[in-house]
């Protein structure tokens, strides 16, 4: 506001000055020409207001200048003593040209100044905008960082909780399986005592059998058979329970095991494993072919157990209709090594596929001994090697079990769980 007022005052001042100068030059011209009759130099005084108005008001100034020039020329005609010479016209023309040039230049300068100011203002605006943008982005980033930190904290807490939970579960599994074994001793022990007691009874009773009538004799004989059968079932159930508990105990110990990753010659390992199954392989005349296998970095014991499990299954789940054949192959993936154990055995029915890796679940035909813990155990081991295990099968054709070992396991490092 103040700036505008100042500007109006300045304009007024300029106008006043021009008017004053014009008046002054008129007076001076008159004075010198008419009164004194001399001094043409002083007549050039009127250049000053003309030039000034051109500089200050550019095109408008030019108009003013022209007007002034015209006025001054005209004023000369009123001075009768002064005759207008061609020189005067020339002078006037030159004045107009100078005025024109000045006006144009002045305009250009004014325009440049205006453009510069505009550009400067625009720049300032843009800088402000950008600064505001940056400030906002900065704030958003800070918020995000805070959020991420909070999420990290939460994740850390969850991880710790999970670890604790895991420890608890492992301890629980250990305690439970340990405590469950104590009564097993009683079951087995007293079943055995029972058997002995019955044997003790049997001797004298058998000697009296001939003295009994047929009905009594058959009843007693049946009773002894019943006792033997009952004890048989008790024994087998107790054994099975013992097996399950041992398997659970082993699973609970898995986490406490340390893995040692080292280079393993797979050809040698598979060879050794096949030797342990030599009896089974020979008995069933199974043909085993092993492709040249690459080296891997993994825990020796774990890989032995995985391979042992897969090969053992392959030798057990044969198809009686044809001679057994087992192929062991391997291939390199982008960042893992894949092993395949293919057999031409019974195969696994579509309905059973989801039970394959479930603990305690067995395939449909239960005539093959085992607790059903081998594959889940193998799966846990494979997982700890950053890999996964799966199977493809067609009933009556065969099964292929495959597992991968990740390349990104620490070399010669121990892994604690």
């Amino acid at each position: 506001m103040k700036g505008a007022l100042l500007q109006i005052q300045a304009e007024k001042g300029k106008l006043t000055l021009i008017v004053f100068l014009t008046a002054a030059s008129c007076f001076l011209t008159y004075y010198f020409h008419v009164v004194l009759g001399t001094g043409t130099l002083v007549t050039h005084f009127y250049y000053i207001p003309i030039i000034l108005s051109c500089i200050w008001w550019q095109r408008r100034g030019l108009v003013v200048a022209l007007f002034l020039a015209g006025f001054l020329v005209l004023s000369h005609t009123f001075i009768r003593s002064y005759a207008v010479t061609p020189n005067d016209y020339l002078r006037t023309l030159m004045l107009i040209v100078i005025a024109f040039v000045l006006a144009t230049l002045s305009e250009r300068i004014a325009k440049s100044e205006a453009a510069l100011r505009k550009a400067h203002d625009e720049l300032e605006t843009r800088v402000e905008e950008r600064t505001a943008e940056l400030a906002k982005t900065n704030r958003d980033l800070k918020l995000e960082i805070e959020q991420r930190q909070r999420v990290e904290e939460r994740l850390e807490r969850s991880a710790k909780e999970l670890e604790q939970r895991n420890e608890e579960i492992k301890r629980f599994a250990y305690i439970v399986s340990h405590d469950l074994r104590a009564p097993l001793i009683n079951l087995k022990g007293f079943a055995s005592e029972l058997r002995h007691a019955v044997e003790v009874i049997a001797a004298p009773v058998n000697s009296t059998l001939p003295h009994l009538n047929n009905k009594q004799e058959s009843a007693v004989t049946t009773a002894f058979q019943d006792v033997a059968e009952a004890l048989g079932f008790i024994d087998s159930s107790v054994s099975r329970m013992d097996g399950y508990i041992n398997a659970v105990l082993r699973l609970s110990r898995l986490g406490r095991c340390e893995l040692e990753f080292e280079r393993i010659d797979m050809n040698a390992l598979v060879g050794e494993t096949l030797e342990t199954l030599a009896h089974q392989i020979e008995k069933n005349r199974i043909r085993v072919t092993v492709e040249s296998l690459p080296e891997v970095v993994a825990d020796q014991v774990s890989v032995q157990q995985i391979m042992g499990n897969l090969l053992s299954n392959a030798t057990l789940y044969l198809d009686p209709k044809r001679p057994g054949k087992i192929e062991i192959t391997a291939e390199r993936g982008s960042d893992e090594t894949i092993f395949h154990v293919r057999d031409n055995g019974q195969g696994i029915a579509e309905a059973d596929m989801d039970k394959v890796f479930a603990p305690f679940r067995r395939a449909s035909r239960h005539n093959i001994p085992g607790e059903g813990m081998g594959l889940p155990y193998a799966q846990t081991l494979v997982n700890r090697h950053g890999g996964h295990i799966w199977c493809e099968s067609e009933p009556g054709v065969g099964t292929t079990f495959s597992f991968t070992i990740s390349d990104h396991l620490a070399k010669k490092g121990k892994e604690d769980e």
Partner: protein
Amino acid sequence: MNSVQEVAILMVEDDAGHARLIEKNLRRSKITNHIITVGDGQQAVDYLFREGQYAGTLGPSNLLVLLDLNLPVFDGYQVLRRMKEDERTRRIPVIILTTTDDPREVARCYDLGCNVYITKPVDYDRFCEAIRKLGLFLSVVTIPKE
């Protein structure tokens, strides 16, 4: 053991089934000594120091203790400590017979002064065998006289 009839065996075992099986198998190893079974740590201490239900009665002159660790009321460690801290019971041979085989527990028991530590096999056949061998072992042990 010397003067076979004189030494009594105090079995501290909370599982009645185990107690019975241990007794039977000891007998099968020709151990004929008197066997007293108590089911928890408190009763064991009462028996040893003639307190509680055993107050006023006379104890056996020579004793050997078969001690399980997982006992209700007082656990085996506390019974063992009390026994070895008291002048009257310090010399009684203590055979720890328990399920755990954790080496730290074993060391702890020997530190407390047990004479022998035996891990109860969880497999029954080996359990039987262990008890029978214990019987054979006991038949050659000499107990300090009171």
